[in-house]
């Protein structure tokens, strides 16, 4: 092999550079944010569905609601425990979860997702 030293050296430098993010971030995993509830949300005990379902499927519910409200003009949601809710992100969800920066943004930032809800929908006013 010609230029053995240069090739292997180059490869080594390449691997070191390539793996930079791995060893640079090793042992520094960001802590998963804690879910923060407002007093009102705590008092309500349960969201429109149970906790496990909301954790996994809230984006699906929101997507279905927006379709149904805008496209089918059906504005009331019947939850699995028989309660009826007005389908509205701004009026129903945010009435309890008025702490958008803690309740929504914290986890979305951690997960690296950027839903564009708030480009149009108006977020509740938060103190500080």
């Amino acid at each position, binding site marked *: 092999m010609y230029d053995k030293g240069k090739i292997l050296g180059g490869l080594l430098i390449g691997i070191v550079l390539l793996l930079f993010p791995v060893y640079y971030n090793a042992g520094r995993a960001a802590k998963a944010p804690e879910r923060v509830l407002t007093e009102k949300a705590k008092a*309500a005990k349960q969201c429109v569905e149970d906790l496990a379902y909301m954790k996994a499927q809230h984006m699906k519910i929101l997507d279905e609601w927006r379709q149904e409200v805008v*496209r089918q003009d059906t504005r009331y949601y019947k939850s699995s425990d028989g309660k009826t809710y*007005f389908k509205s992100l*701004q*009026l129903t969800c945010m*009435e309890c979860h008025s702490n958008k920066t803690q309740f929504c943004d914290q986890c979305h930032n951690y997960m690296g997702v950027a839903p564009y809800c708030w480009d149009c929908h*108006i977020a509740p006013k938060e103190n500080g």
Partner: protein
Amino acid sequence: MMGINRREFLKIAGWSALLGAGGKAAFELLAPGEAEALLQPTPLKAKQWAMAIDFTKMDEEVMGAAIRACHRLYNVPDMGNPKVELKWIWKETYEHTFPTQENEYIAEQFHHHNFLVLCNHCTNPPCCRACPTKATWRREDGIVMMDMHRCIGCRFCMAACPFGARSFNWGDPRQAPKELNPDFPTNPDLPTRSKGVVEKCQFCAERLAKGQIPACVEAANAVKTEAMFFGDLTVKDSPVRKALRTRYSIRRKPELGTGPNVYYII
């Protein structure tokens, strides 16, 4: 006749005060959104919504009230620049409103006079045919609706609409000049739009769902009675049919075959 006398009223008031002080108010016992759900209003329904605007009642005050009511309700900002303006309902001269019916000897009451114009909610809407994502479509009650979630901002609908009833958000509407929109967004219960979507009048679909007539009609009629009419075109005794039956009316560019559902009584 009074339903209850003074004595009964005081009794009820007393009991209510006691209950209120001791127990919890009813709204606190309900889950969020539940109060709205319990008070489910009866939506207004129709086969074909239509509007009639009485030109003889239109002055700056009436038109201003209608425009203000609409634009404040739906968070439509004043962009301060006609190139990027957003409009759901606005004023247009006779020449621009009815371009094919203009001549230089037209009666003075029309010449250069402003008409109140908005989306015509056409029976055969060309905008809906042009839309590649079905972000705009004609509902079963005749409302030409917009789904902002689905709009990709291609502006085909704007090119297709012969009435200029659609506006494009060239920028973020929340960046609208502060001095022109000091309290924007004016209605925290409804969304604004975002950069890159097309918006227009939705015949107050939000209000109809709550059993209310469109905001512009209500506001205009509050200034001058029977300035605007709204109702189901297929119902013989609806306000709009009654108005059209007795007075002569015209529509904008009917020759294009789009079937506009906004009528102008002249």
